[in-house]
Structures are given as C-alpha cells and as structure tokens.
C-alpha cells in the first residue's frame, strides 16, 4: 500500500493526500462534536432526573412512613415534567410497591435492584435508581425509567448532517484542491520533464523558466544554478581530460623512449608491462615479444634464484628496493648484470598489487669495477712491495753504519800492511756497492711510488759533462778504454733542467758502458735538436731537445733483450754472463728521462756495442741563476794553529762510541767517552769539553736531560752539542733542539756530516780536500700540502695513537693506523705513508703534534 502510494505521481499523491487529510480532519472534528453532543444530552438528562429524584426522595419519606399513598402519588407525579420519563415506582422498605407512575417495564424488583450502576443506558432507555433516605434511615427505593429515543434520533440526525458536510467538503476540496495541486505539481512536473530532457539529450544549456517566486521558484533558481555549475565543471573536466591525455602521452613517450628499462610485474613473477628499452636490454626485439616469452621472472630471468627470493623478501618488508644488483639471462643465454630500483604498489589493505620500477644494465660498470679492484689490488701489492723494500733497506743501512764507519776509520791508519789495505778497500767497496744497491732499490721504490720530483734550475751543463768525464776517466783508463767527450758547439753551456737527474742517468750509462766494454772506446756526445732558441726565451719552455749519447764498443745487446734493458730488476745477460749491479740503473734512468718529459733509447747489436741516447726537453739558462754546488769535505786533520779541542762522545752503544772516538782521534781531537747522560755530566764538569756528541736514547739519563743539565752548568752554553740518534722516531728534532742541541745528525752518519757539524765550532779548523756533494732530494711538492691544519679532520684519538706508535717505533701499527686514515681522506693517508716510507719520521711527528 505504502509502495503503491510512493510510486504514484506527485499530482496523485498530492490530491490523495490532500483529500485524505481533509476527510480525516472533518470526520475527526464531527466525531468529537458528536460524542460531545451525546455526552451533553446524557449529562443533561441525568441531571434533570437526579434533581427530580432528589426532591421526590426527600418529599416521599414522610408519605412512605405515614403510608400516605395519596401523598406518595402526588409526589411521584412530579416526574411528568420530564418528558423522557416513561415511568417510575417507589418501593417501601419491605420492597413492596408503595406508589408508581406511568408504565414501568415488567421487571421484578430484584432485577431492577441488581443493576450494577445507579444509571444504566440500555436499549434506548435509561434506568435510574436511588435510595429514599432521611437522617440516615432508609425508607424505600425510587426507580425511574426514561426513554433515550431522542438521543438516538439526535445521533442519526448528526450522522446525516456529517455526511452532508463531508460531501460538501469533498466537492469543495475537489475543485479547490485540484487547482491548488496544479499550482504546486505543475512546476515540479515541469522541472522533472526538463531534468529528463537534459538527461536524455545531455544538453546542459537547457534551463527551466521560473513562474513563481515561491520555494519552487527558488528550486528553479538552484536547479539552473546547478546546471551552470555542471556546465562549468564539464568544461573544466574536458580541459583536465585533455591535460591528462597530454600527460599520458608525455609519460608514454618517456616510457617508450627511456634508456632505462621500466617495468611492472606481478608478485608471482610475471611481467605486466615493459618498455622497449627493457626488452632490448634482454635481447628481445619488442616488449610484446618479451612479455610473450618471459612468463616466469624467477626462472627465466634470474641466474641465481636466491637473489630473486631476496629481492622479493626485501620489497615485501621494505616496500622499496634501491640499486638491487643481480645477474640475469639475456635471450641468447648470455649473462648481464642488472640493477633494480623498484617499489611495491599496494591496495588500501596493504596487499601488494604489483611491483614497478626500473632496470639498468650495469654489466659494463661491473666489469669496470672489477678492473678497478684488480688495479687497486695490484697497486696495493706494489705499494706493499715498496714498503717492504724500504723497510729492508733501512734495516740494512743501520749495520752498514758500523761496516763503513770502521772501514773508513781503519783506512786512515797509515801503518796498515798493503794486503790489509786491499782487504779494507774491498770491504769498503763492497759496502759502498751494497749501499749503492740499497740506494738504487730505494730510489726505484720512490720512483714507482711517484715520490720523486724534478728539481729544475739553471746549471752549467759543460762543467757537469767535463766533471763526469774526469770521474770515469780513471775507470776507463784502468780498463784501457778510450773515453772521449764531444760537446757540440750548439749545445748551450747553461741550461734549465734537473742537473741531478741528468747526471745520474749519465753516470748510469757511462758506468754500464765501461762495465760492459772490454776494449775499444766510449764516447759521450751531446747535441741539440728542434732548436727553437730564436723565439722568445722566456716563453719557450721546450725551446730545444738536448741529446746526450753514450756510445760504446762493448758486448752489445741482443735484439730480443732490447725491450728488457729498461725494466726493473732485469739484466741482459751477455755472452759472457756478466751480471753485476742492481739491475735497476737503466730502469731508474728511463724513469728519470720520463720525469723530465724526455726519453731514453737504445740501439745495439750483439758484439758490436750499444748506443744509449737521452733526449730531454730543455731551454737555455741564465749564467747568473747558477747556484754553486755545495762541497763535502774529506777532512784530513785539524789545522795546526788550532789548540786542544776536547770532544766528549756520549753513547750507550760501545761500537758507536768507538767509531766516533776513532774518527775524531784520527783528525786530532781529544776524546773522552761516557755511557750515559749522568756519566757525561760528571766528565763535562771535570773535563770541560768544547764539543759534545750526544746520543739521545740512553739508560740512566737520556741525552735530552743530559743536554738540559749541561746547558745549566757554568760555561755549558759555550759548548757545541751535536745530537746523534739512530731512531728519530722517538726523538723530536725540535725537542732535542729545545733541550740544548746545536746540531742534529741521524744514523747512519757519514764522517763528513760529523766534521761539518764540528766545524761550526769557532775554534775548529780542518785541513781537507773538497769533494762535490750530491744534491739532496727535495721533498715532493705534494707533501707540502700536508699541514697540521689538514690533519685536524682526523680524530684526536687517532692522532695520539699515531704519535704513540711513532714514539714506540711500532711501524706495523703505524701502517695500520695510516690505513684507517684513508677512511677520512685518502690523499692525506697516502702523503703520511709517503713520509713513513721516506723515513721522514720527525716531519710526521711534528705534523701530528701540531695537529693534536
């Protein structure tokens, strides 16, 4: 029923509703009115009967008591004034009829008296009873019957009236309601039809025409307004659709043309989408071919299926996987390395829908990394070798101090027998050779470690060549070889280059020439090619190529060995199997040539001799820029005019004291020895030496403390103190100076170093012959970058550990610590290691202390 009503048209709903409401309201009003009327009628009737009955009761008491029937009738007849009363009867106390009035229904007293209520309406009649009492005493009962026919008539009349009213109302509402309904439903129907039309035609430009300014009018406005908004939204959506389309096309282009592989795959291992780059990466012509053929990623793509499992586990737990590397099969079965950057796409319940990401072929990168690793390993091995050699060399150099020292000392003895002198010469030569060998090895390791720098300055080339000629003449004459120097006229006297390196190369070449030549000649030729000296001198760095050629008529080198001669530790073994030297000379020479941006070449024929040519770029120098080379002295003795010079040698090692004492005694010094600092103080006070040679590390009292105390002794400040130590690691040079040292000499020392230091004493004067001193190597430029500030990036703890390792001489630990420096700065670590390899322990220590 409700559904039927709900599905009716609005017009019918409204009409039905309107009429129903009017009908119900009218009926309700009439029913209420009717009930009210009935009640009024009844109340009225009851009131009248009750009033009359009361009077009758009061009045009839006496008549009943005196049995005065006449009076009783008179009294009862007063009921005639009530037209509805049909009859009445008074019963006395004995329930016998006393008097009656009108017609009383033929009902027994008992029946009448059993009426439950005082008043009863039944069958168009009203029954009324009341006791007749006086002063609490009951005299009888009054029973009255009244007709209610009037009431029924009234009710029927009322129903008839109601029906008439209803008909009238229905007719009125039919006409009035119809027009009212139209005024409401028509605009609604109009709106409904318009909406239907818009819906069918999709034309949002249609509008409804407003008729009234009531709520429906407002609804029309809202509807039209809504249509405006829909039209605007449509336009906006259309625009957005176009943007989306463009965007989709853009991303489609990126997808299609990307160089990286892009994919989407199911968690079960099936690709959903791949771009052409991905298909190509795996050797497939098209994405379609790839998608058709690859149905299981795990088995068809992954070489190692555990890798696939790991990828799965990670993307499930972390949602995103970055740079996940794995090996994959291509279509042809070859294996490539791929890097996967993917993430999982999940639904709102966090269930994985698919993975999407990019794949990159990193095979080339991987190979390159492997090569880099191999290279680094090789370099590390090479470096380890260099370090090893450096350490070994250092360990050899220390005992060499004793060997050479004693030899030199003994050679000073003029009383030696000839055979002893020869033996000593052999020992010394062997020692020198060994030292040379060690120096070569060290040099080579330095070169290989890139720690050799060039020292470019102006020098006298002619002088240098002549000096070399003099040097080798003795040896060549000893072998009856003809040594000649031909300086071409165009060769400038002063050139700008690294004198030391050129000299070293020529020493090597000439030495080899003499060594491998039994007869004939050795010629040192010079020349200049690519002469550019006509240009601007200042701007032309490579203004010419200096060519230095050493020709010999020696054993020569076979063609197959020509490639080997410049390699480290290789020697071309000639027919006669000569094999001397370190085998590093030519290798070092070539390295030097390269350092000077030049080249060294060889041409040779076995048995006919060899030609080694050194060609280096150089330019002409200014004579005024030439610095005279320092000379080292071969001290013979103290000058005669010098008085007594007392030298105190302090060292806990007897051999060291012995060597120093003997060298100095030879020259003419007065020598006393002390085993430790304390003893030195006693001797100093007693003997007052002008010079003290002080070892630093000693038992009882070390050199530093001894120096401090000597300086405090009166006249102690006049003394020259020379600190000598084998291990500079545990001694800081600066600290040694601070303790009062004037000079600082490292072991193994050469005698001339000692003499140079002593010569600084004003009273000392030697008689000696000069000998050219070899040029010291310079610290590579890059080491100059090492400053205490640059070390502040390292933790204090690490600096302190390195410092402790240096002090305790624990080199292995020091190397370990330097390796850990690489974590902070690779360059600094390398430079620090450089200092260690170079035995620049004091520099390292200074740096560490300043930084800490």
């Amino acid at each position, binding site marked *: 029923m409700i559904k039927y009503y709900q599905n009716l048209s609005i017009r019918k709903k409204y009409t039905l509703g309107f009429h129903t409401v009017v009908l119900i309201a009218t009926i309700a009003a009439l029913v209420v009115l009717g009930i009210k009327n009935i009640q009024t009628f009844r109340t009225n009737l009851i009131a009248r009967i009750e009033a009359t009955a009361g009077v009758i009761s009061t*009045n009839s008491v*006496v008549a009943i*008591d*005196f049995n005065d029937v006449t*009076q009783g009738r*008179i009294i009862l007849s007063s009921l005639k004034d009530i037209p509805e009363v049909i009859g009445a009867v008074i019963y006395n106390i004995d329930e016998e009829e006393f008097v009656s009035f009108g017609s009383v229904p033929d009902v027994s007293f008992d029946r009448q008296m059993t009426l439950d209520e005082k008043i009863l309406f039944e069958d168009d009649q009203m029954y009324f009873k009341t006791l007749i009492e006086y*002063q609490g005493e009951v005299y009888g009962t009054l029973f009255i019957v009244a007709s209610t026919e009037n009431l029924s008539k009234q009710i029927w009349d009322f129903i008839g009236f109601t029906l008439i009213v209803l008909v009238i109302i229905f007719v009125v509402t039919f006409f009035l309601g119809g027009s009212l309904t139209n005024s409401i439903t028509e605009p609604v129907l109009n709106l409904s039809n318009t909406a239907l039309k818009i819906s069918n035609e999709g034309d949002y430009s249609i509008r409804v025409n407003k008729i009234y300014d009531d709520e429906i009018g407002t609804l029309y406005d809202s509807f039209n307004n809504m249509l405006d908004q829909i039209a605007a939204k449509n336009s906006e959506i259309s625009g957005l659709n176009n943007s989306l389309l463009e965007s989709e096309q853009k991303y489609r282009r990126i997808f299609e043309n990307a160089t990286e592989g892009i994919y989407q795959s199911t968690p079960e291992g099936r690709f959903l989408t791949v771009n052409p780059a991905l298909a190509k990466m795996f050797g497939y012509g098209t994405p379609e071919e790839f998608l058709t053929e690859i149905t299981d990623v795990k088995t068809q793509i992954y070489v190692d299926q555990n890798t696939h499992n790991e990828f799965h586990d990670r993307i499930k737990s972390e949602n995103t996987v970055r740079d996940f590397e794995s090996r994959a099969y291509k279509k042809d079965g070859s294996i490539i390395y791929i890097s996967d950057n993917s993430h999982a796409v999940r639904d709102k319940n966090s269930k994985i829908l698919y993975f999407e990401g990019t794949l990159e072929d990193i095979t080339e990168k991987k190979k390159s990394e492997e090569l880099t690793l191999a290279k680094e390993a090789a370099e590390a091995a090479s470096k380890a070798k260099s370090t090893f050699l450096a350490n070994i060399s250092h360990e050899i150099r220390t005992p060499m101090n004793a060997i050479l020292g004693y030899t030199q000392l003994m050679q000073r003895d003029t009383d030696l027998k000839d055979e002893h002198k020869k033996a000593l010469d052999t020992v010394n030569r062997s020692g020198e050779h060994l030292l040379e060998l060690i120096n070569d090895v060290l040099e080579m390791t330095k070169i290989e470690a890139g720690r050799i720098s060039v020292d470019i300055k102006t020098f006298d080339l002619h002088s240098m060549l002549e000096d070399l000629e003099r040097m080798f003449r003795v040896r060549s004459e000893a072998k009856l070889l003809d040594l000649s120097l031909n300086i071409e006229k165009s060769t400038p006297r002063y050139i700008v280059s690294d004198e030391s390196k050129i000299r070293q190369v020529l020493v090597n070449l000439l030495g080899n020439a003499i060594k491998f030549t039994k007869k004939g000649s050795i010629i040192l030729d010079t020349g200049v090619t690519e002469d550019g000296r006509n240009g601007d001198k200042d701007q032309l760095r490579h203004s010419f190529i200096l060519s230095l050629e050493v020709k010999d008529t020696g054993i020569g080198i076979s063609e197959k060995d020509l490639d080997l001669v410049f390699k480290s530790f290789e020697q071309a073994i000639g027919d006669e199997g000569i094999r001397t030297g370190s085998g590093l000379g030519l290798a070092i020479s070539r390295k030097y040539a390269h350092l000077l941006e030049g080249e060294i070449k060889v041409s040779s024929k076995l048995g006919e001799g060899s030609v080694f040519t050194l060609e280096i770029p150089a330019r002409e120098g200014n004579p005024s820029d030439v610095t005279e080379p320092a000379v080292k002295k071969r001290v013979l003795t103290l000058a005669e005019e010098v008085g007594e010079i007392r030298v105190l040698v302090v060292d806990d090692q007897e051999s060291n004291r012995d060597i120093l004492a003997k060298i100095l005694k030879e020259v003419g010094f007065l020598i006393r020895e002390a085993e430790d600092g304390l003893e030195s103080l006693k001797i100093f006070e007693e003997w007052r030496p002008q010079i003290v040679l002080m070892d630093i590390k000693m038992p009882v009292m070390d050199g530093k403390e001894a120096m401090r105390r000597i300086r405090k002794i009166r006249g102690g400040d006049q003394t020259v103190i020379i600190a000598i130590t084998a291990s500079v690691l545990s001694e800081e040079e600066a600290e040694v100076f601070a303790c009062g040292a004037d000079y600082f000499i490292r072991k193994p020392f050469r005698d001339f170093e000692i003499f140079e230091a002593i010569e600084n004493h004003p009273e000392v004067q030697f008689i000696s012959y000069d000998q050219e001193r070899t040029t010291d190597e310079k610290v590579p430029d890059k080491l100059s970058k090492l400053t205490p500030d640059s070390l502040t990036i390292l933790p204090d703890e690490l600096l302190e550990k390195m410092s402790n390792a240096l002090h305790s001489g624990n080199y292995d630990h020091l190397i370990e610590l330097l390796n850990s420096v690489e974590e902070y700065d690779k360059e600094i670590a390398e430079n620090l290691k450089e200092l260690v390899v170079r035995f620049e322990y004091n520099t390292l220590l200074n740096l560490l202390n300043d930084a800490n």
Partner: protein
Amino acid sequence: MDKKSLKFLLSFTVLLVFFAAPGFLCAQSITMEDEYVLKSVNIFRICKFTEWPNFSGLDRPFTIAVLGDLPGNQNLGILEDRLIGDRKITITKINDIEELGSSEVVFVCASEEDKLDAITRYVLNKAVLTISDTEGFAEKGIMFNFYIEENFLKFEINREAVENSLVKPHSRLYTIGKIVKD
C-alpha cells in the same frame, strides 16, 4: 426477655400490620389500649420528622413528658427506649408544666384543659413540641392534635403555634395533617 420487651415487640408487629393497611386505620372495635399504641406510634413518627435545635450529641434521653392523666390509665410506654436520632426515648409523668424541665415533647392530656393557656404560654418560643388528643386543643395552641375521623386516626396542626416555637417539623407533615391555624 422481660415482659416489657415482649410487649414492645408485639406492639411493633401490630404497627407493621397497621402500616400495611391504607391510612391510619382506627376501627371502632379497637380497644382504648390499641388506640394509644397507635397514637404512640404516630407521636414517634412526628418526632422523627421534627428537628430540635442543638439536638444531636446531647448526653441525655429524648424525654416525652405526659402532662396530666391519660384516660383509662393508658400510657405511652410503648415508646420507651426507642431511638430518635441517637437518643433513647424516655417517658416522664408531670403534673405541672413547670415540671417540664428539658423535655423535648409534652403530651397534654385532656385533664389539663383549664391550664392550656398557661401551658402554651410556657412553651412559647421554646424547643418543645406540644401534642394532644383532645378536640379543640389545636385551636387553643397545641401544635399537633390527634383526632379520629371515619375510623382513621388523623392529626391537625396549629401552624402558628409551631412557628412560634423553636422546633421545625418536616414540611411534608403539613400535607398529611390538617392545618387549623395558619
């Protein structure tokens, strides 16, 4: 049950029979004693329908005084112990109106004809109901006076006398009795 109570019970049985008959039947054949029983019953009825001021709550019997002598040595003893309201009736015999005391009713016998004037004067404006059964007494100021007519015992009422007293008989008594002085 004593003799008095038995008599009372019998009298009322007669009364019931009497009431069953129309009117106050008073046959000539009835004895003097029956007559006074009938009169006693009617005295009782009149008293029932009459109001005295300050009637209820009094802690004394409702007293009917018999002034003078009833003929034939009759009495109103049948009324003894019956209730008027909540008070029991008692009958006293007085010889002079001055002895009336607080009696509510005085039955004036025919013997008092000479003192009638004094009696009516004495009860004037008092709450005393005066009853008699002597012809002419109503006209002379007695309020209720019994008489026999056509074998029926009837009473007449001196309305003036009633209105000059403080007692109020039920209005319907006026419709039953004959008004002699209005």
